[in-house]
């Protein structure tokens, strides 16, 4: 944007006649970084407003969830008997599932809960779902740090393939998360049922990925080797969890014969990333189309 002239009279050369509606699109969101930063900061502050533990909740919550699964699935159902370092296996999966659930959950509600602004101010509305995804990212990074520390204490063999798998898994899931957040935040304005649907999907997600059980169990199960196994793996969260485990869990276990993954795991991850990018493109187009109806539907 050009600097303002003191006379408050726009020079036609600098200021062409154009549509006053915000250009929108993800590019515009990142061009207005200062606005994005404020929205992200605000969401972070708001999330734990009037709570005593505040930001600590993003550690307490996953810790409790981890302990419950470790007790119920690990110790009672004995899933950790055939899974070495079950705790790492579980925690790596839990981080990815929570990352996805937070992105999609908060993203879906993002436009609706900012309706006061959306109705009255001209701004690229994509900023709200994008901010939700970034907030989810901020919550996840410290957890990955804790996981890395735990792995280092146990004893960790570094591998470039593992690091690549971890980064690919995280990045791929973030792309899917932004796409879902964009699409669902727009649809949620039109049909408020979506909020409930998303709540249902995210609560299933803990069981639909190899987290509380290892991939071994899927390969051995009735769906192993069938088309249904491919359907199971087509879930980007399942692939993301496996890639994260390839990074941390495999690094701790060491012996590859004890850690089973689907064939060509990295290639699968790359394909999921490519599909995710196409989906992101479609989601953004859909958001643009629905966005013009936001002010009257909110």
């Amino acid at each position: 944007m050009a600097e303002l002239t003191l006379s408050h009279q726009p020079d036609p050369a600098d200021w062409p006649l154009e549509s006053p509606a915000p250009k929108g699109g993800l590019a515009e969101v990142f061009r207005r970084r200062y606005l994005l930063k404020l929205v992200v900061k605000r969401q972070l502050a708001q999330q734990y407003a009037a709570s005593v533990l505040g930001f600590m909740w993003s550690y307490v919550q996953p810790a409790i969830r981890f302990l419950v699964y470790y007790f119920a699935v690990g110790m009672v159902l004995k899933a950790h008997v055939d899974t070495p370092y079950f705790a790492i296996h579980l925690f790596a999966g839990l981080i990815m599932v929570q990352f996805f659930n937070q992105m999609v959950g908060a993203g879906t509600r993002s436009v609706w809960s900012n309706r006061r602004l959306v109705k009255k101010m001209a701004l690229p509305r994509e900023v709200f779902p994008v901010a939700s995804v970034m907030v989810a990212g901020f919550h996840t990074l410290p957890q990955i740090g804790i996981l890395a520390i735990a792995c280092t204490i146990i004893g960790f063999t570094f591998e470039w393939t593992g690091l690549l798998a971890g980064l690919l898994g995280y990045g791929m899931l973030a792309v899917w998360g932004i796409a879902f957040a964009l699409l669902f935040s727009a649809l949620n304005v039109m049909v408020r049922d979506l909020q409930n649907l998303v709540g249902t999907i995210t609560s299933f997600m803990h069981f639909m990925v190899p987290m509380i059980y290892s991939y071994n169990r899927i390969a051995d199960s009735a769906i192993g080797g069938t088309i249904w196994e491919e359907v199971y793996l087509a879930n980007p969260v399942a692939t993301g969890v496996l890639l994260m485990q390839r990074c941390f869990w495999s690094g701790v276990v060491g012996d590859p014969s004890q850690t089973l993954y689907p064939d060509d795991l990295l290639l699968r991850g790359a394909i999921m990333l490519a599909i995710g990018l196409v989906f992101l493109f479609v989601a953004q187009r859909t958001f643009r189309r629905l966005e013009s109806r936001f002010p009257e539907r909110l």
Partner: protein
Amino acid sequence: MTESIVVDNVTKNFTMRDHRTLKQMLVASVRGHQISDTFRALDQVSFTVEQGESIGLMGLNGSGKSTLLKLINGVMRPDEGRVLTRGRIAGLIATGAGFHQQLSGRDNIFLNAAILGMTEAETRRKFDDIVEFADIGRFLDTPVAAYSSGMSARLGFAIAIHVDSHIFLADEVLAVGDRPFKRKCMERMQQIRKEGRTLFYVSHAPGSVRKMCDRVIVLEKGRIGFDGGVDEGIHYLKYDAPAPGDEPDDDDLGADI
């Protein structure tokens, strides 16, 4: 002269939905009722505003004034036709800006200023002026939810008026403020006018329109009923004949709405 606002053959429809749930929609379609109905808020509206003009937009409630302002401000897009503007736009759409209720006044100032296109440095430079103009005192760090409607409107107006803009939109801004504040607003808007900015002022008060504007556009059921001189416009609306029981002061400063 340069064109500041071009509204070209603009139509805007709203969809009204009576049947919200699947069951209601099914029942309605079985009975042959219409599932949705549209309402035309603006109907082929066209006009051009030159830079530095100050327009009084008048019309009865429901004539499409706010919709037109939302299109010019960019919150909405027209269904048909096009709206073009030149330069940065600031102002208020209806009373009370888009504030976030849980955020403090301070945070809302920064957020709102950022949405209006101000940088962080620019906001810091003008922060004290904004706070002083809004006169919210020690409520600055209180969540906006606790503000009275007057305080909230004052803060919104204070932010909008401190943005360096080329076009200033004012929608019934004077409806909630008290008299000293209204006076202050009128002074600032006169200043904006003198600076050569384009002013778009929605009001029901003929007195303030007369003081502030050099052209009046009257909307009638979504169409342009009148576009021309101020006195003729007010006469067109029959707002110049005092209604029984009107206080003369209302005419002076504008009890909008």
